[in-house]
């Protein structure tokens, strides 16, 4: 296509190459829609985020440095990031597998499993915490007690982040035609080669998107792990628990410093994943 894309002919293929001068030439109705979206987005997201950043500075530079150099905070941050990362890796594997089973395998109870997947997402997190505590706590009916250990944090995170990868990969798998795999096999590709070269590249964007959400949820989780993990400083305490403690002890500025830090990390991770996704999809 050599036709210069114009606003009269918006289309998927032309969208990326729309010349810069056309950006401001919005029609009245789309200007209005853009305005409403921006106001809504600002009220809900941008302004509160800015407020957190502003509040983080109320304690002054020294205050921020003090919060950031506190070893207990560092331990909590390290634990949070490692656990979230571990859970994300677990989800990439398990979530993709579960999505595969749900889409490709015909078995009894598939429809029920499909519904159950969403429960960790729909359940109020404190209820999830209670469920985990009663099953894996000191009174465990199956005699598995992980209370006050790092495994408890991992378990809680794995529980609440389970649906993300499943739900992003599932629709992509459903859209994937089996004749593409058949074409590969008649060209001589083994099952494994077909998975690696044909199926996986189509799934990568969805897996990455799901992983990003799982990680973001993981570093922010509070309700589901607070009961089971015991919140032991330097051992099982996560960063969100630190934020709550600061607020409870009347130090919102310190809480905001940690909140801003979390925000920054989330932004970095999302950007990094986006870059990875672009590179990976381009390479194949």
């Amino acid at each position, binding site marked *: *296509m050599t036709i210069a894309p114009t606003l009269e002919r918006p289309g998927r*293929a032309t969208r990326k190459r729309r010349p810069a001068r056309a950006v401001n030439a919005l029609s009245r109705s789309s200007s209005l829609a853009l305005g409403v979206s921006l106001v809504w987005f600002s009220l809900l997201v941008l302004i509160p985020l800015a407020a957190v950043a502003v509040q983080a500075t109320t304690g002054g530079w020294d205050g921020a440095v003090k919060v950031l150099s506190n070893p207990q905070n560092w331990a909590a941050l390290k634990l949070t990031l490692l656990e979230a990362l571990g859970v994300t890796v677990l989800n990439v594997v398990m979530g993709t597998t579960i999505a595969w089973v749900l889409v490709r395998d015909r078995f009894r109870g598939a429809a029920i499993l499909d519904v159950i997947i969403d429960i960790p997402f729909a359940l109020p997190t404190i209820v999830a915490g209670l469920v985990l505590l009663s099953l894996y706590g000191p009174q465990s009916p199956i005699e598995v007690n992980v209370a006050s250990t790092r495994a408890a944090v991992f378990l809680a995170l794995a529980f609440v982040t389970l649906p993300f990868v499943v739900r992003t990969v599932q629709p992509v798998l459903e859209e994937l*035609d089996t*004749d*593409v795999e*058949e*074409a*590969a*096999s*008649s*060209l*001589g*590709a*083994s099952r494994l*080669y077909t998975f690696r*070269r*044909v199926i996986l*590249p*189509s799934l990568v964007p969805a897996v990455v998107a799901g992983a990003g959400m799982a990680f973001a949820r993981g570093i922010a989780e509070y309700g589901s792990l607070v009961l089971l993990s015991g919140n032991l400083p330097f051992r099982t305490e996560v960063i969100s628990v630190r934020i709550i403690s600061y607020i409870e002890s009347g130090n919102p500025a310190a809480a905001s410093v940690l909140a801003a830090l979390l925000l920054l990390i989330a932004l970095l991770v999302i950007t990094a994943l986006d870059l990875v996704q672009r590179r990976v*999809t381009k390479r*194949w």
Partner: protein
Amino acid sequence: MSIEITGVNKSFGDFVALDNVNLSLPTGQLTALLGPSGGGKSTLPRIIAGLDNADTGSVSIEGVEATHLPPQKRNVGFVFQHYAVFKHMSVAKNVAFGLEIRKKPKAEVKARVAELLELVHLSQFADRLPSQLSGGQRQRLALARALAVEPSVLLLDEPFGALDAKVRKELRDWLRRLHDEVHVTTVFVTHDQEEALEVADEIVVINQGRVEQVGTPDELYDAPASDFVMSFLGEATTLGGQLIRPHDIELSVTPLVVGGVEGVVSRVLRVGFEVRVTVLTDAGEEVVVVVTRTAARHLGVQEGRHVWLSPAAGAVTLPSAGLPAGTALHAV
């Protein structure tokens, strides 16, 4: 014989897709598998390619017993109705796929890809993604990808089914020319009788899982073995209990011939250069007659007019015993 199919049966639940099919297709031939949609004909190339397994019977390709070979080992090129191109790979990468699996040297792959893209007229699109191609271009890409590995057999399952009428016609002519150039044994499935008549060396008519007739396009058209073949390949209508082609009926406004069937014109439909005249005979039969526009004007055919119908000299007719009323028109 390049493909030898012996006693193949295949059912999906209650649906019998193939019912004791025996076929031998000679090397280098372009064969059409023709039949109505849902008649099981697509199952046959899938079984030849190993994408489905026959319940009973055997398949051999180029003299090699292939019944239990996996698709990877059959060296068969397969082209799907909906292209099945690898969406995340460039056009050139798609074509190179089979060659890279065979671990060919890079330079050889590159040369072969260039050669094939030239063949399917996609050279200038080598670095594009399939999403930037039209449907017809994607199907040519799929064809190049299948041909790249020099398959002993090329199978095409309704290859033009998803394309619009004009592109379909172009690709059909192009496939014929390509086959004359490449000479690979080719089997293509279609429900479009015109497509089969135009392109194929030989047509296999399949209905309800059974082979109805095998023959050249002319043989099938001139000497149909069954009323099904007659009504599926080209149009057919009934006159005096006999199946006959609508253009093989002579229509006159006076009782010229002894034994001519008398009737009244009930409908006149002009389609381009031809006029389709529906006549209700005194015996209660609805006969469709096709005449040229000139002839219709000359005779003054109009609704309500009394006419006499008789088979033209040399017309092919078949007893229409098993054919339910109305079937004659479905092949239009």
